[in-house]
């Protein structure tokens, strides 16, 4: 960045433009999800609030009126007010970070607290897997593109497409079955839970080792289900970049192959995948619901499946909102990163 200091004035202007655009889009997305999640609970046929009231009457022995006031206080809404007022209340609460209270899973605990307790686990397991899968996919994709139409290429592309088509649920079950039950290479307790009992989170070697041991198999599922996508995208991008003039020129100039591969081909071919990286976080967070359920991994995904079985609406709503914000932040980072990696984007703004 320091090199650009001398022409700071216009760089700053352009950057600002790009950033304002990006930020405005993120707010739009956030607003859509917030509104959707309000509508889901308040305006959907089948009226979730009524079901919640009935649940409360059943489980906590309340009269209907008591249950109704209780539901209202849990959701932090005045259920008798007109819908648009409730909507604004809801927005106000959200700005204050108040997502209501859990009423089944952890009675009386605030949703924000519960979700933020679980979120780091999911972000760790999904994030590390995504980085591995992305890096590996970029590498294999380039390899396949360089050796295109060879046997290696055929094997790589076909296998990765097949691996990616098998649903994550099935992969998780297959891996537990093969690694834990049939071959017995991974002890089953490493595939249940996210830490061994008795180990406290902290900067100790013991903790880090245990953390990665528990991450390994669920992590493998994330990698297997996403690797193919990265690889195929990188392959086709590399093939098209390889035909570009600047690569031919670089070759003609006698640059070493390694430099051409990394600085010319690799950088340009991997650019489109950087934005896809952020989108895939949202995709993986959805998948984590099933995977964490199967591996009893203590993240938001498991929380989600528990909230579904226990019908804990405030928690479900909270997870939806918190994951949306997480995804928005990560896409924003990716967008800015993209703008930094590819100056053309910064200058043209938003063109394809």
């Amino acid at each position, binding site marked *: 960045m320091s090199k650009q200091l001398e022409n700071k004035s216009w760089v700053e202007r352009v950057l600002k433009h790009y950033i304002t655009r990006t930020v405005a889009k993120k707010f739009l997305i956030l607003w859509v999800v917030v509104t959707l999640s309000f509508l889901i609970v308040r305006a959907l046929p*089948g009226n979730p609030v009524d079901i919640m009231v009935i649940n409360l009457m059943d489980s906590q022995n309340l009269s209907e009126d008591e249950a109704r006031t209780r539901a209202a206080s849990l959701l932090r809404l005045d259920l008798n007010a007109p819908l648009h007022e409730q909507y604004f209340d809801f927005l106000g609460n959200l700005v204050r970070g108040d997502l209501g209270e859990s009423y089944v899973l952890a009675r009386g605990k605030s949703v924000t607290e519960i979700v933020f307790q679980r979120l780091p686990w999911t972000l760790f397991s999904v994030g590390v897997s995504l980085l591995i899968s992305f890096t590996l996919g970029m590498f294999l994709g380039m390899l396949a593109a360089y050796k295109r139409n060879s046997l290696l290429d055929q094997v790589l592309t076909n296998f990765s497409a097949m691996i990616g088509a098998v649903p*994550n649920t*099935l992969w998780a*079950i297959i891996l537990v079955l093969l690694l834990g*039950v049939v071959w017995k290479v991974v002890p089953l307790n490493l595939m249940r839970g996210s830490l061994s009992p008795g180990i406290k989170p902290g900067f100790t070697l013991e903790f880090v080792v245990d953390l990665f041991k528990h991450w390994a198999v669920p992590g493998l599922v994330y990698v297997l289900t996403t690797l193919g996508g990265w690889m195929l995208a990188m392959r086709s991008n590399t093939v098209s970049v390889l035909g570009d003039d600047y690569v031919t020129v670089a070759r003609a100039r006698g640059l070493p192959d390694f430099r051409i591969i990394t600085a010319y081909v690799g950088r340009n071919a991997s650019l489109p995948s950087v934005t896809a990286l952020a989108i895939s976080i949202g995709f993986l967070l959805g998948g984590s619901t099933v995977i964490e359920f199967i591996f009893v991994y203590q993240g938001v995904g498991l929380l*989600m499946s528990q909230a579904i079985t226990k019908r804990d609406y405030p928690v479900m709503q909270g*997870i939806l909102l918190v994951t949306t914000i997480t995804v928005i932040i990560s896409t924003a980072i990716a967008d800015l990163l993209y703008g930094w990696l590819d100056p053309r984007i910064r200058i043209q703004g938003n063109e394809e």
Partner: protein
Amino acid sequence: MKNLMHKLTAFGAEILKTLKLIARNKMGFVGFLALLLLIFMSYVGPLIVEPEMRANVKQIYKPPSWEHPLGTDFQGRENWIMLVHGGAEVITVAFLAGLLTTIIAVVVGAASAFFGDWVDDSIMTVTDTWLALPRGILLIVTAYFVSLEDVWTLALFLAVFGWPSLARQVRSQFLSLKKREYIEAAQLLNLGAPHIIFREMLPNMMSYILLALIESMIGAIYSQTYLVFLGLVPFGNNWGVLFSLAYAKNAIYNPNAMASLLVPMGGIVALQLSLIMFSRSLEEVFNPRLRVGV
């Protein structure tokens, strides 16, 4: 009428040509045959084989043997009969969802590319917003509240969540078609948007759309599987429900019950693999550049 007949024969000849090309690609041909076999088993099979309606307490969890070719499940039902009866629903949902996804994506993508300007801007903003949502979680939460009780609702639901990335691809395909000379000529002749889109552009995109359809089907089966596994799609004895039930009954740790878990899982995996093999070879057929290498 005569015109229609003529078109039909031309269409038939086209299909025959494609089939010949597919037969040339071994992997694609295997995928194609497997797909036909699965469809035949799932739609014709139930007409021949009586469904297992009653539980049979005496033969719960029998491992595969001569008497029980694929073993029995937790209610003593034959796994192979459940396999035959459990496919139709999965394939129907996948096909309908794929079809609806493709229709939405083509309409949206075509409109966006064809009209350009503010139409394009606003449609693409909506698409990007939809694409940037944590759709997995949103899918689960909405699936919980919307009651997905029949095949059509589930298919429509999956389509509503599946269209955006395809719409983007269709749009860029249309944009590149739009620059061709014969489209520009049609525009100069003022033939009207519907005519140009449906009579000039779409026929040239049929191969692409067919691929998109298969891809959407694969995606629909993928999402369907985890929705069923989470218990959000409460209908039928289809493969998804069967393997989820077996998993819930801890069949994974019981060697005798393993077959009741693996057989329906095998159905889903076979379906996905045959679809992907078929689509990859179709891609080769439709895109001559891939055949000779770029």
